[in-house]
């Protein structure tokens, strides 16, 4: 290996990359746009739950209940109606997420010590959101019940009950952004490195200049190193910029060590660059390379735990996710950002990513060299 030859190739790559105007939006604008869109749009927070109310009682108690609901930051009563049909209609038209029906004998029943039924209809079409909304509603009802009982008996009943002190760690306010934005950084790293490496080699193939590179004294391993090195440098710089931007713009907490992230990113790059190299060996045109990259990215993305939790997948698929480098990188990047954990906790992920990366990279290099010879 001659470093001089590699250096010249790296220099040529850089010149080529920045001379082509088409590359600029891909390199500079796309990452930021994606970060902003994902950061703002991808949320599963439960907030602003729209409630429609059909109150047949119109009494102090029913108003108290509705006030409790409306005062809760999660709920917002948007529709009052006097017709049961209209309540159904606004549910059907997706104007509300939750409908409340209070019967005419609501207060009489409560005052006589009986239970007053309140019908709550939840729009279940987004099942995960509905589950959370139902849980929040139950919470409001329970608090209301407690208040009513205390009011009625003028004393608190002291019976042995569990007082569950739920403390939410790592992301106390359950903000989607804190969970998704670090994941997007990982996604961007993967897309950029995959696309850039495969394109860099295909471009030479398409232009026919790969033949010229082969007849130069450049040895295959030098060619690979020289082709990959610029993209390692570029993606690393981009990731540092994007991460810093994300931390400042979305005021993300970074509890752990930034350096650890950089090390993880390097290890992750080994596998993605390997895959990029592999794609370049099976594609003839840039078009094909882009499509193939797309085919790789979608399953990597879906089966990484980025949006869909791995724990909710069937067991067989859960095993398969161990082959996905993005899975490990997401655990690391979220661990460092949210949990502030270090090597002591994350070493299995680092190890797995390294082994996976080396296997992928070495086999891709072997295949690539065979193609060159």
């Amino acid at each position, binding site marked *: 290996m001659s470093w001089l030859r590699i250096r010249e190739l790296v220099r040529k790559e850089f010149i080529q990359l920045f001379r082509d105007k088409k590359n600029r939006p891909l390199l500079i604008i796309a990452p930021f746009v994606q970060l902003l869109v994902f950061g703002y749009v991808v949320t*599963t927070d439960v907030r602003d739950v729209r409630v429609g109310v059909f109150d047949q009682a119109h009494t102090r108690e029913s108003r108290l209940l509705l006030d409790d609901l409306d005062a809760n930051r999660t709920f917002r009563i948007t529709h009052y109606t006097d017709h049961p049909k209209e309540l159904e209609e606004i549910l059907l038209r997706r104007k509300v997420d939750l409908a409340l029906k209070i019967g005419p004998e609501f207060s009489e029943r409560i005052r006589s010590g009986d239970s007053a039924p309140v019908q709550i209809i939840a729009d279940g079409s987004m099942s995960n959101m509905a589950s959370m909304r139902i849980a929040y509603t*139950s919470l409001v009802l329970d608090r209301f019940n407690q208040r009513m009982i205390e009011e009625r008996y003028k004393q608190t009943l002291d019976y*042995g009950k569990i007082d569950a002190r739920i403390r939410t760690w790592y992301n106390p306010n359950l903000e989607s952004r804190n*969970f998704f934005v670090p994941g997007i950084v990982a996604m961007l790293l993967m897309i950029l490195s995959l696309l850039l490496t495969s394109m860099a080699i295909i471009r030479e193939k398409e232009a026919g200049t790969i033949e010229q590179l082969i007849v130069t004294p450049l040895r295959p391993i030098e060619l690979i190193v020289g082709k990959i090195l610029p993209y390692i440098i570029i993606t690393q710089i981009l990731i540092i910029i994007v991460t810093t931007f994300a931390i400042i713009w979305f005021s993300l907490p970074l509890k752990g060590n930034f350096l650890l992230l950089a090390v993880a990113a390097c290890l992750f790059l080994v596998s993605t660059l390997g895959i990029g190299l592999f794609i370049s060996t099976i594609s003839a045109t840039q078009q094909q390379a882009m499509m193939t990259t797309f085919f790789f990215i979608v399953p990597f993305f879906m089966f990484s735990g980025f949006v869909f939790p791995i724990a909710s997948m069937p067991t067989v698929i859960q095993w398969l996710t161990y082959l996905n480098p993005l899975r490990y990188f997401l655990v690391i990047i979220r661990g460092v950002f949210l949990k502030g954990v270090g090597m002591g906790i994350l070493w299995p992920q680092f190890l797995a990513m390294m082994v996976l990366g080396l296997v992928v990279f070495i086999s891709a290099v072997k295949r690539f060299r065979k193609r060159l010879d």
Partner: protein
Amino acid sequence: MNPVTIKAIARKEFYHLVRDFRSMYLAFVIPLLMILMFGYALSLDVDSVKVVIVDHDKTKESRELAQKLNASAYFQIVRQLNDSLVAVRYLDQGLTTMAIVIPPGWTEDLKADREASLQVLLDGSDPNFAGISRGYITAFVEAYNRDQLLSFLNRKGMDEIKAPVDGRIRVWFNEDLESQNFIVPGIIAIIIMIVGAMLTSLVIAREYENGTMETIRSLPVGGGELLLGKAIPYFLIALTDVLVAVFMGQVLFGVVMKSSFCLLVLASTIYISVALSLGFLISIATKSQLVANQMAILITFLPSLLLSNFVFPIGNMPKIFQMLTYIIPATYFIDILNGLYLRGLGLSHLGQSYLILVGMLIVLSYAGFALLRKEGM
């Protein structure tokens, strides 16, 4: 408009498609994979929450609590631990979602009719997962306390206190709360965008790149005939994909449509046409396959995935993005799919969305046609 010309162009385009293995792959394999992936493997629901228990009390009651938790369908005890610090390690490593610490003297408090505190540590990093898990544990504790209250009243010989308000929660539209029921229909919209817009975005650009656009111009073919002829094969492929997706959703995953099938076919026909016109428009405007492909991903695929109320509720987005969702065709198509699949709605409710899609179709196809004419077709 000459039907013979259109047929000839359609046939040529069809041959192109069949010969290119990768396009066929994109047209048929990707949709199948997506349906399988989403129907079978990807879910936003929480089946059971992983729990580690640290029992410092070690009494009959505390063990019973653990058993009760494990017996419930919503929880799965991974490990019984003796040390809270080890439980923290489990949380840090992500081996458990929840750690429950039963402090010493817990049973004593319970028996002496005091509040017995239970420490629950929840991994909140995934807000969706954590929010649902929190709902499960709150409901579990409520049920436990209700039993406690009953036995307390029994002991004191008092009448049962009824809860003043009895919330009877019912779920409509997706009674079993399964995410498959809204994700599988939504996938149809994504598939149409991939097949319709991403494939067609390359079609005219390819003619420009190969220089065959000049040849076409010299032929007695009008712009409308060219677009229509090129659209037909893609239209048929997309429609086949939709039918396969509907069939697979129903047979494999039990996602049953509540409304009429004809309305779905009608909506798909309109939406496929919208996707095709969008693809053509991109293709004519960019004239380069590479740029067209990038544009197609950026303005058709990603918005349909993110800005369409598919998985991420529009109501949660900042105002500016909410406005943006109004011009995304997928928003209306997903609204229709949701209405047809889950709500059993008809044209009286969904008519507006149908009309908007038709309006978009007219605008987009006219824009494509006009652009092509400006190019001298």
